């Protein structure tokens, strides 16, 4: 904080204090409170956000020999770790008895590569209702709440997981079924709703792909940052609709998700070009629109997404190119970050290829926040929304 004005005595004191008060340092040295609960939280590696472990497992660069190196660097290691986690989680749950475990259920759903984490959580929670031995509605509700809490604490950094769980509870329990006399019929009703919710969430991606087709016109150039299954679905649908377009993929360091996306698109015979992350501004002239996914959509209408989204959006905004976000509505979270540091950091190891000297700090945060003024439209399963509508929807959902 050296640039602070010298006019305050307090500043000097603060300087001394804040030297050790580096946000990076604190978050690494002191694990989040939920970590203490090891039985419910089988994620031993606090340095890597579990969310990104899953992503690495799902989106890790898997094919083509020219990607082998990247795969070795990124794909393998987290995958191994992940498997270890799963095993441990299973054993932990097994050790607790033969009882049904949400985490187990969640993990089994999560292994499906096409299933989003939040949808897996939703499915797992639906299974909780089904397996519940509760005899009263209250009991069932408490059980559900507990299950969702343990899911949430499994990975505190995943926005969509938290948001998905919250929305599920909202959707399922906010029903007149709770006033039914007969517990069993009420439970059936809940299960029905839970499954419907799961179905909606599962189909969200298709809906978004359909909605976004009007925006992709023949001959356009689309810049995509990061790997997002929704965006891939959008582009896939466009290709199937015989639209002629080309795609620029950013490399997406550090886990090189752009390589994966370019590979998928090449399979669809879409002309695709890979860019370095730093070449975004250089090629923005040729670009007609920017497409990004989102880890989470926050209440301001902004998005939290893979590191680099903010700068892509800034460049696009300054060159008057539209920035489109494809995100399912279960990613709508009741968060309101005011700036980049105003959220729980999700950490991610960065491999620079060479050893880094001990005195050099590395920015490990895996995502950034893009404020709403840099986004043009959000494609969601609720419709095509302007950023300001997100808050309206959230108000209606939660209040």
């Amino acid at each position, binding site marked *: *904080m050296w*640039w*602070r*004005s010298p006019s*305050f005595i*307090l*500043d000097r004191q*603060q300087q001394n*204090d*804040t030297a050790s*008060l580096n946000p990076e340092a604190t978050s690494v040295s002191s694990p989040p409170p939920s970590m203490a609960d090891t039985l419910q939280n089988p994620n031993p590696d606090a340095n890597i956000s579990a969310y990104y472990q899953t992503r690495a497992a799902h989106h890790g660069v898997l094919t083509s020999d020219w990607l082998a190196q990247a795969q070795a660097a990124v794909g393998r290691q987290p995958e191994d770790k992940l498997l270890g986690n799963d095993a441990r989680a299973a054993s932990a749950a097994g050790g607790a008895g033969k009882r049904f475990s949400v985490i187990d259920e969640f993990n089994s759903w999560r292994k499906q590569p096409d299933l989003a984490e939040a949808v897996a959580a939703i499915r797992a929670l639906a299974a909780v209702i089904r397996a519940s031995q509760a005899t009263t509605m209250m009991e069932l509700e408490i059980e559900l709440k507990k299950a969702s809490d343990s899911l949430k604490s499994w990975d505190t950094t995943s926005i969509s997981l938290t948001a998905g769980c919250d*929305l599920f509870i*909202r*959707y399922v329990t*906010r*029903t*007149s079924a709770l006033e039914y006399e007969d517990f069993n019929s009420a439970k059936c009703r809940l299960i029905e*709703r839970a499954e*419907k*919710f799961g*179905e*909606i969430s599962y*189909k969200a991606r*298709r*809906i978004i792909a*359909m*909605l976004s*087709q*009007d*925006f992709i016109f023949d001959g356009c150039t689309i810049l995509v940052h990061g790997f997002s299954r929704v965006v891939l679905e959008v582009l896939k649908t466009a290709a199937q609709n015989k639209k002629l377009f080309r795609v620029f993929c950013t490399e997406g360091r550090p886990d090189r998700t752009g390589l994966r996306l370019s590979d998928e698109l090449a399979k669809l015979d879409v002309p695709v070009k890979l860019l370095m992350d730093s070449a975004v501004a250089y090629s923005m002239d040729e670009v007609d629109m920017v497409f990004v996914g989102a880890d989470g959509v926050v*209440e*301001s*209408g902004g998005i939290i997404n893979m590191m680099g989204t903010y700068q892509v959006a800034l460049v696009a905004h300054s060159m008057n190119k539209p920035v489109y976000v494809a995100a399912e*509505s279960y990613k*709508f979270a*009741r968060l*309101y970050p*005011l*700036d980049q*540091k*105003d959220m729980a950091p999700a950490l991610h190891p960065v491999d620079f290829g060479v050893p880094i000297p001990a005195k050099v700090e590395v920015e490990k945060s895996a995502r950034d926040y893009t404020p*709403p003024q840099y986004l043009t*439209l959000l494609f969601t*399963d*609720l*419709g*095509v929304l*302007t950023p*300001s509508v997100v*808050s*309206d*929807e959230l*108000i*209606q*959902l*939660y*209040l």
Partner: protein
Amino acid sequence: MEPRRTSRTVSDPKVRQVGFFTSQHHHHHHHHLPERSFSEPPLPDPFHTSTSTSSAPVTDVSPSGNLLSPVMILPSRHHSDNLHRLSHRATSPTASFSYFARAVVVRENDDSLLSPGRRGIAVKSPSSVVAASSFPKGGFDLTAVKASSVPASKLTTVSVVNLPPGISEKAGGASVEVQNDRPAKSKPLKQKTSKAERRATQEAQRAAKAAAKAFFNLLLKLAVDLYSLAEGSKTSAAVPGPVNSANTKTAKSPKSPSQKNDAVSVAAAEKKAGDRQLEKDRKKDVPHPRMQYDDQSRVEKAKRRAVVKQTEARNRVELFRHLPQYEHGTQLPDLESKFFQLDPMHPAVYKVGLQYLSGDICGGNARCIAMLQAFQETIRSYSTPPEKSLVRDLTAKISSYVSFLNECRPLSISMGNAIRFLKSTIAKLPLSMSESEAKATLQADIDRFINEKIILADNVIVKHAVTKIRDGDVLLTYGASSAVEMVLLHAHELGKQFRVVVVDSRPKLEGQLLLRRLVGRGLGCTYTHINAVSYIMHEVTRVFLGASSILSNGTVYSRVGTACVAMAAHAFGVPVLVCCEAYKFHERVQLDSICFNELGDPDAISKVHGREEINYLDGSTNSENLQLLNLTYDATPSDYVSIVITDYGMVPPTSVPVIVREYRKEHLWI
């Protein structure tokens, strides 16, 4: 892209329910949702369309699905065009019908039209046109009032009957019969009769609008009016010239309602009167305009009514002449001496008014609470006068108190909302409720409003806002907002390490009060004036501001200088957090600080107390060339506001209208 957005807004915004809504009748739409959106890809928002169609019958005020019968008009064989006009007026959305029960049967009496004698005398148009064009307003208003006072299911009948003189017809039930004669008159008289007639209908209108009388009073009144109208037209027929106006006046005085009236001739000119009536209906629909203080005649009128005799300042700034500005400090002793003389004013209200006037109570919440408590006091000591109903009389009383308080100091928007709440609560009191019960309910309701909307709301705001304060922050605040003060104190109690910069401005120097309280609690503070805001903004990490009100376009209406601070913060990339209770939100939209504002004492900015040597303006304050402007509020555009922290959570300023829309209706104000 644009059509998408518009089509979305077209789908009824009131019943727009989106996403994971849960009420029973929606859920069956979900399963066919995906197919639907597949089949029609350009459908912007499948959820919306499906829900809006499904829930349309649920809306309580949907004009089509109205439970109560709308205006019914019996078919006529002869004058369908005329009836059409009537019905059109009745159903046109601009007409001033409230959503009250209304049932009107306009019956065309064919016999009257066929009466041969009248045909010959008819000036230009058939008499039914006259009746239709000149009476509809009175008739409709009348029935609106009636229908609201009797069970809605009952069909009320008002027949506007055109009959030759001498024949009267009973339409059964409560019906008003008007017999229209048709004196053959020359043209100059038409205008006069029309004037008289307009006057009569206006009278009826006013009576209906006030809705203070029971139906039979109104009936009586209408009869009187019609009588006077008839008299007026008769006399004007007899005595042409300037005597006419006097005649219409005298015609009003007789109180015996007669069934046999000779009345009303009309011609094409009358249609114009009808149109004008329509115009007036339209005007009634738009919110009542604020008093414009540059309108000489209205100011004079208001002055005559006023309790507080304010002297107006002489040199007012050009753009702000429509705002009231008074010489300060002159009326207080006068009012104090009147304390025991003022009969109609309750002492509690009077006291609060004086406190507003002297500035002892300031700050949005404090003023609002003081006012509500004063009203509580008045309700406690209230007893319904004989032959009056509590609902009507109390509302009138409250209105008179409100206008008194408004004279003391212009009401803030939050107070306006609170008053609206109170009035709607009074209006909703069931008629069967006893007086003591009603009073107890009202007092409890006021208590609940204060607790829920102000005190609890503040607690929630504090809870949300402290999550945005991190260790090492430098928080800047401007003026003295009670909500911000609570936030800062609570964050300090939680042990957060932060520093506060209090920015202040002349002439109120409210920041010093805040500063004293903060320093007293052990917070590290910096105090500066607004002149230094761009310098100090470098080191600030968050700006916390209070608000007098937030308007529908996200404009923050707050102490003058707030906009300046917010803009400076925006320029420096510092997030601006506005703490504001939801009861202060208003559905109005305002683009500048001019059209609605409050002018403070101009002397306050021209003089500095205790520093005689720098009072350079001493001799020249009365100069014609000097205009002093001491604004109290300003409007901050929503672009400069990062977040609004309210009792419904943290929302962007663009969501303020959503909160207004979603919560006003169920939280019983409006």
